[in-house]
């Protein structure tokens, strides 16, 4: 039986800029027990006077032993995210508790089709699933529908483009809500129910769905999927706050 989750020291090994407002932190975590795609961690920061605060961040990559990757979006005026994106120095510690979550998880051994729907930085845990599918050479079809404001906000843009081209059975659809790249035939705007219906498999197929993003986005998409006939019990959701970061 697994034991209680302790706070583990984690050291910044590498910081990779993803967009102007987001970076991936590669952290070395001695004793990391491993994790599944979709899981998250709690990160705790403590100041030298004892003040401490914590936030949850999704794991962006599949289990690679003693290093984990978190992609953090800088929240304007946030207490934690600007520090993590801009200031945490290579080699410096934070504390990490996890992996957390046994419901919003995916496994490459699942035989069913998987529909992933991301709003903004909700793509992070879904990217761990895309990457895990690639690393396992899994064959079951997967579609990622990724709603994002502008092309400049797309996380993992180059990798998504490459995976969409090279990974058999993987489809990537990026939809822009505020500004689309030149030549994009789709008018900008929110994902509509009709559009989700056209991008998703028919509800008659056996599909496991993961939706992650801000609360309003997830509620909207999950509601649309149910209205399209998707089984509520096969839709897994994870919501994060609009701010607080």
């Amino acid at each position: 039986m697994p034991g209680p989750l302790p706070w583990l020291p984690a050291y910044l090994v590498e910081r990779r800029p993803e967009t102007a407002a987001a970076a991936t932190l590669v952290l070395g975590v001695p004793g990391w027990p491993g994790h599944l795609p979709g899981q998250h961690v709690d990160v705790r920061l403590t100041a030298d006077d004892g003040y401490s605060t914590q936030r949850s961040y999704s794991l962006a990559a599949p289990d690679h032993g003693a290093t984990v990757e978190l992609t953090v979006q800088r929240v304007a005026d946030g207490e934690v995210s600007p520090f993590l994106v801009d200031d945490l120095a290579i080699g410096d510690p934070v504390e990490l508790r996890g992996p957390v979550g046994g419901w919003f998880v995916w496994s490459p051994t699942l035989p069913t089709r998987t529909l992933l729907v991301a709003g903004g930085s909700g793509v992070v845990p879904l990217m761990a699933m895309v990457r895990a599918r690639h690393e396992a050479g899994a064959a079951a079809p997967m579609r990622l529908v990724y709603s994002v404001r502008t092309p400049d906000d797309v996380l993992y843009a180059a990798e998504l483009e490459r995976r969409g081209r090279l990974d058999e059975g993987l489809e990537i659809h990026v939809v822009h809500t505020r500004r689309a790249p030149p030549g994009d035939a789709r008018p900008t705007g929110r994902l509509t129910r009709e559009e989700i219906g056209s991008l998703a498999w028919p509800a008659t197929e056996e599909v496991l769905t993961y939706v992650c993003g801000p609360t309003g986005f997830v509620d909207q998409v999950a509601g649309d999927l149910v209205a399209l006939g998707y089984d509520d019990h096969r839709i897994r959701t994870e919501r994060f706050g609009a701010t607080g970061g």
Partner: protein
Amino acid sequence: MTDEHGEPAPLDGNGLGGVLGAFLGVDVTDAILVCDGCGRQQVLAALVVFGAGPGGVARCRGCSHVMLRVAEIRNELVVDLRGTTRLRLRRP
């Protein structure tokens, strides 16, 4: 935590997984709970969660009834389940 209108932005039960797991030693985000208010059955991960400092409040996604209250008090975790009629856990 607020949205652009200054309203509290609720999260979901996924976020309670860390603190519950730290005390229980198992993940319970896939536990199934039945609401005492409306009878709706839902996984803990899908509950509507309001964080309130040392405490958290989880409400039914159907009727907003308070199903679960959690507070980390010193070295104890206190869980109040009076809004839940049934809790089903999977063997780890």
